[in-house]
């Protein structure tokens, strides 16, 4: 018992142990609630909800009416759970930096490559997130929604997605890091 408690307090687990935990979560998602895990769809649900309230004409199209219906879906609740679960994980390893200034831009490797300014980190995160969400809309899911939960059902779509993701990810990293690759 003490061994388990100590292991929970560790900052980074072996990725294999954490992977087994995620695998069990994936099984129970299908078993208990007959749904798949996914994160990016929830943002579209929320965006649809806001959009329908602000500009109903603009959002009255195929995509937001049928493919990604707005509202408090299970995916949104799951996203809230992910947020608090991540916080709990950080709290148990005492790396939770709630409201501290250094947490705005804490990654040493990032600072070495792009510079130490905080606004750069936030601006690039914003632009990158737009790219992520847009492409997740095209492909029909993100890393969790398509690659992991599609992969565990052996969907061909998931493996195409993983292949594309790594191909362009490696290329982008090559361009960003150049000499330091």
């Amino acid at each position, binding site marked *: 018992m003490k061994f388990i408690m100590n292991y929970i307090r560790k900052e980074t687990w072996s990725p294999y142990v954490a992977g087994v*935990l995620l695998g069990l979560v994936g099984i129970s998602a299908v078993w208990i609630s007959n749904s798949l895990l996914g994160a990016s769809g929830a943002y579209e649900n929320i965006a649809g909800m806001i959009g329908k309230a602000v500009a109903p004409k603009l959002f009255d199209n195929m995509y937001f009416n049928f493919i990604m219906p707005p509202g408090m879906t299970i*995916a949104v609740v799951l*996203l809230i759970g992910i947020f*608090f*679960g991540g916080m709990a994980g950080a709290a148990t390893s005492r790396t939770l930096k709630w409201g501290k200034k250094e947490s705005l831009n804490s990654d040493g490797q990032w600072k070495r490559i792009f510079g130490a300014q905080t606004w750069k980190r936030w601006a690039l995160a914003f632009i990158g997130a737009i790219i992520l969400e847009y*492409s997740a809309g095209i492909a029909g899911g993100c890393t969790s929604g398509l690659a992991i939960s599609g992969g565990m059902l052996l969907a061909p779509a998931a493996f*195409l997605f993983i292949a594309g993701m*790594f191909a362009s990810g490696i290329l982008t990293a090559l361009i960003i890091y150049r000499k330091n690759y």
Partner: protein
Amino acid sequence: MSNYFVALVLGGFFGFSLNKAGLTKYNKIVNVFRFTDMAVLQFMMTALVVSMSGLFALRGLGLIVFPSIPSTYIVGNTIGGLIFGIGMALTGF
């Protein structure tokens, strides 16, 4: 209503495992593209293998019915993945 509670708990464990594997850090995600730290691949593939074998065993026993499997659009999935990789390497999602 109970469905929402289940989703909240499952999401909690999902976030917990992501955090413990270090996938909430920028350097972990980018280093997998630089081949210096393969934690992301180890994590993802372990999760895939565990859930894959569990789900297919449960289906073989007749305990579950698969939900709708993500549909295949060869061009859409590949192009989506290609653009996704750019965003992933930039932000560390």
